[in-house]
């Protein structure tokens, strides 16, 4: 009997979501939904609310890394957001990482790159791994190189390399 129930649940996992008639924003059900979400949010601690915002920044970083956008966003822009939602000013953060404010400003404005040391500090402070912070720099470097078009990369291939090897 238990197996039968599990099987039925398993089949319903891909059940439909949505109302073909659309959402009626004047309905009692929708008003109750809005109220339930507000009540739930208000029951959270300040730490929970901050974590939601920091998770949002983490997903924004991952989304940026995943998509093929050619509009470069410097890692510093994401650090700025982390500081803003945590209500930490730049001077305090500079002191915390033992940097002078001038160098921090350069990092936040994209004039200075993230290195492994600062990436490790950021990983320990915010919910974004050091590897992800480093990947941001790598992605931006690749986009810049593609945009600069200093070489025609399409001319390179394993076949051409093998042809060259035969000549040598």
């Amino acid at each position, binding site marked *: 009997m238990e197996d039968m129930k599990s099987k039925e*649940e398993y089949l319903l*996992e891909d*059940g439909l979501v*949505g*109302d073909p008639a659309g959402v009626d924003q004047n309905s009692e*059900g929708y008003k109750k939904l*809005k109220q339930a979400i507000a009540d739930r*949010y208000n029951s959270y601690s300040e730490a929970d609310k901050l974590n939601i915002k920091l998770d949002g920044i983490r997903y924004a970083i991952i989304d940026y890394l995943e998509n093929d956008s050619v509009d470069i966003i410097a890692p510093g822009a994401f650090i700025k957001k982390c500081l803003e939602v945590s209500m930490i000013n730049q001077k305090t953060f500079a002191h915390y990482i033992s940097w002078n404010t001038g160098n921090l400003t350069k990092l936040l404005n994209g004039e200075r790159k993230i290195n492994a040391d600062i990436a490790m500090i950021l990983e320990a402070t915010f919910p974004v791994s050091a590897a992800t912070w480093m990947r941001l720099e790598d992605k931006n470097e690749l986009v810049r190189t593609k945009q600069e078009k200093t070489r025609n990369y399409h001319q390179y291939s394993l076949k051409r390399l093998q042809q060259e090897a035969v000549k040598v």
Partner: protein
Amino acid sequence: MEVLLLEIASQKLINAELMPAKISDMKGITDGWDFSWKKHFNLPNSKAFKIVLKSAPGIVQGLLLFQMLGKEEPYMAFLESAPHNKGKDKQFDFVAGCLISMACQLSFLEGKGHYEGFLSFQCMDEKVIKVYAGKYGAIRVDRTFMFIEPSVGKQLIEEYLFRKHIN
């Protein structure tokens, strides 16, 4: 975004791609699909997504229509697995899980104020409502409305979107 689907027959994880859908993708979405996707495709403030296998990019495995209600509220307007991924003979599992998780991620990216990270939606089937509550941690409000709160959405994102890729 790369995701993994479970092939039922082999019980192997298969590489798939979750990506924005275009209106041209809706041409083949007719026989066996419950929703009129072409009709709903252009809902205001909405984005459509599809899942396809890397090895068969022309075959849609499932569709999602994510909508912003007003400027603040993330809403999963429609979600449907392809006809071949429904019922006892379905070919791939995790289709709905990946699409719901994508909507959860969008609720973090686009939700504003106290709606950030909250994803709401409607289910019209009582049995499906129970499964969504049990399997995906959704909270039921009233008859058809449900929502997924941020901490649960985060778990779904980790499970379905950030699962370790093969190769």
